[in-house]
């Protein structure tokens, strides 16, 4: 059986800081296949960087097991893991030329000088930095430094490429450019890559799969589409993209759908996420209890007041016309604030402050999550 590129089994990390125990990472399980690009996404302090550093070997897990290509690496020193690490601030050696930086690992490995020269040049060419060999890091722009950092790592042909927020020090325009470039390079080389970021658009555009982390735990693992359209927890729904979370009382739970009471109106029916739990008779969804309805701003229609079933009565708090669409801030009858983004077309009425409206949620794009 072919083994996975990387496997984390019940990996945990506990720090003691100022006499207090901090659970930085708790029981993380993850399998990464050969050639995948997996991003770790989460707010700062969620444990994503610590997890990455444990895979690299800079930190040792307090418990659990890490295997790279089937080999147990849990306690292996960093320099024997065959990984490549790209640092947030690049960590180029300031006292070495570009050549010296890229050749560093090959020299440590004891390769022949002639081979080193060839490999360094082809790596630099690959990242578009031919003819910069003799320059020093402080003579390079931020983007160029980033490319040298990449070249320094890929020249080693690592089993695993680990990147810790590699683009966060670049300006916005360059960041977009480097995203596609890194992704293209990674695909071209077929290299397995773990990529830590707190920028969700970076994660959504680059990743094969995203690992969303919060408070040291994995909230959800999935493709960008799954993460965005089928969030498995309120945290993920709220963290990825914009989402309105409305607490509603369940009046009926059946198969995979829930019906809930609309404040000041009729009822609303939508599918319930977490199909791993049976909706019927589940602890998570019980009649009389509350559930969280997740709805993205672009899936809301703002209409004249109506008493039609499935519409939510609301009033407008503010409306801003931004050209292609109108951004509404609305308030439901129970006081919940809702954001809506309605595409603007010529002749369309824009509701003013305090106007009464009714909201129509796109039932196919709406889902219930347990609270």
């Amino acid at each position, binding site marked *: 059986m072919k083994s996975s590129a990387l496997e984390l*089994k*019940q990996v*945990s990390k506990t720090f003691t800081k100022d006499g207090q125990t901090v659970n930085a990472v708790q029981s993380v*399980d993850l399998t990464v296949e050969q050639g995948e690009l997996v991003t770790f996404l989460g707010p700062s302090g969620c444990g994503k960087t610590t997890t990455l550093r444990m895979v*690299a*070997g*800079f930190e*040792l*897990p*307090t*418990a*659990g*097991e890490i295997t790279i290509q089937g080999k147990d690496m*849990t*306690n292996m*020193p*960093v*320099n*024997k*893991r*065959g*990984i*490549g*690490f790209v*640092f*947030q*601030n690049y*960590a*180029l*050696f*300031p*006292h*070495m030329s570009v050549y010296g930086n890229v050749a*560093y*690992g090959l020299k*440590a*490995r004891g390769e022949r000088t002639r081979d080193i020269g060839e490999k360094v040049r082809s790596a630099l060419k690959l990242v*578009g930095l031919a003819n910069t060999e003799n320059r*020093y890091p*402080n*003579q*390079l*722009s*931020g*983007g*160029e430094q980033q*490319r040298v950092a990449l070249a*320094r*790592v890929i020249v*080693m042909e690592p089993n695993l490429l*680990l990147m810790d927020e590699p683009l966060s020090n670049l*300006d916005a*325009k*360059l960041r977009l*450019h480097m995203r596609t470039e890194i992704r293209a390079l990674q695909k071209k080389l077929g290299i397995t890559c773990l990529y830590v970021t707190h920028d969700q658009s970076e994660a959504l555009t680059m990743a094969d799969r995203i690992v969303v982390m919060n408070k040291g735990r994995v909230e959800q693992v999935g493709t960008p589409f799954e993460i965005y359209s089928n969030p498995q927890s309120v945290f993920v729904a709220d963290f990825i993209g914009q989402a309105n979370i409305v607490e509603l009382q369940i009046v009926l739970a059946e198969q995979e759908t829930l019906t809930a009471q609309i404040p000041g109106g009729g009822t609303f029916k939508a599918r319930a996420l977490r199909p791993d739990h049976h909706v019927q008779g589940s602890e998570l969804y019980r009649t009389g209890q509350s559930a969280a309805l997740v709805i993205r701003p672009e899936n809301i229609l703002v209409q004249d007041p109506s008493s039609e079933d499935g519409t939510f009565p609301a009033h407008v708090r503010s409306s801003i016309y931004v050209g292609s669409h109108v951004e509404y801030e609305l308030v439901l009858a129970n006081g919940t604030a809702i954001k809506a983004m309605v595409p603007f077309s010529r002749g369309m009425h824009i509701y003013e402050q305090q106007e009464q409206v009714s909201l129509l949620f796109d039932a196919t794009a709406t889902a219930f999550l347990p609270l």
Partner: protein
Amino acid sequence: MRIPALPKSTKRSLIKSDPVLYSAMVAVWLSFAVFIFLPLLSLLWTTFFVNGTFSFANIKKVWSAKYNVRALYGSLILATAVSVSGTLLGYIFALAVTRTTLPKPLKVLLGAVTILPLISPPFTSSISLTLALGPNGMLLKALGIKNFSIYGFIGIWISETLTYFPVAFMVISAILNTMAATLDDAALSLGASRWRMLRTVTIPLSLPGIGNSILLLFGASLADFATPLILGGHTFPVLPTEAYLLITGMFDLKGGAALSFLLLVPALVVFFLQRQLLGTKSFVSVTGKNGARTEFAQLPKTLVVAISAICTIMVVFIIYLYAIILWGSFVKVWSVNNTFTFEHYRYVFKHGRKAIGDTLLIAFLSTVIGSVLAVVIGYITQRKTFIGKRFMEFSSMLNYALPGTVVGIAYIIGFNRKPILLTGTLTILVAAYVFRYYATGIRSVVASLEQIDPALEEASLSLGAGTLRTFTHVTIPLIIPAVFAGMRYLFIHCMTAISATIFLVSVRWTLLTTRILESMTELQFSQASAFSIVLIVIVFAADAIMHRALGMITANFHRPQEASYEIIGA
């Protein structure tokens, strides 16, 4: 079905996981045991144990001698006076350099003048003050002053202030420089006058520097041995000289030990206060978010005039004192027969050759060994976490924090019998210097490492280099300027310091500084001057060589910052 792996303990022993670190730590602790703990414990044993039982008899005995009590008070009064006057003078110089628009050449001269006392042997100012203000003093004659005696409190006070105010200058100007200039602008824009700005912003923000300077100078004066020996005489005894006379004159080791214990107590108090002060977060704002660096606001006009006047007088006076030594080294008999002669230099190079050779050898060995130790200790205490780390930091500074006299006495007591019989050897001299003056090296290595992102070392490890290769190929090249800074300081001190080693010299191994002292006690002022000049020239030359060497080593990677931020692909 997957069976979850059982949580696995990942604790490993240090020997296995990091054998290099392990052996380095063993070596450091061993060296501390022999050269720091053994002598100090021997000193305490000799002081407090009489025939194997604990007793205050030795302390009581020295305390009952009126002369010793006077020496204790003398030491404390002198240290207080010097710390205040030196800090004041240092502050004035620091203001002149950092907050005035005095012409550049004058500022350079101010800087140079503050460096001279730092690299001169400790006797220099005492010798020149004797030549200027002593019996037959040149300046006294010129000014027509009679009935003035340089010997006693006044002389020591002036001499030590001159010797130590540069320390205050360095500490305070560093802190004045790191203040955000925008604070000045803020104060002025809120309607404060320049005096008010000085009183409410500049001075309060520099308080940590002032405090540190006072403590440093207090400690330095308390420990100073050379100046009181020459200028104190019997009119103003202080503890270090009393201990020295007791040991070398009366061979009273127990009495010397007890006296040095009296000295040890205030020195340790100062040491702890200083650690406390530096440990608390300084409230000087180095945010790095100042935007474009603005100029500091000008000081009040009258103050600038006063500062300029004081600085000018001091610069002239210090240059005059050095000139006088140079002049003194070329005359036959000071102020009696002023004929020009090379006689004294001939004497120095003939009869002082052994001292010159010995001093150079000892300084060289101490500098090399001390630097290696400083790098190792600085590295493991800054980069690694281990049990006993704080204790290692503390112990490494102990010999430095204690007055040289205490260390010297501890060394002769600790090493004058088997199993470690070292008195009279080269080893004991080198060890005394190494474990006293590597402290600055450790500090500069630590400061330098704090500036270096650990990611650089992690990058090296992740590229497959081992711990040792990472250390030699990445860490060392990056901290080499700091190592050299420590080396220069170590070398200068090995050439000039005397307070500890005066107890350790022998017929076999002697030092230039002890030859200067001998010449002074024999009233051979011109000979002493010639020895001093030779010593200063050697220090200057060696310092210049080290500076050049550093320049050559780092030429490769200290490129000028010419970062170009063109957008790639644009």
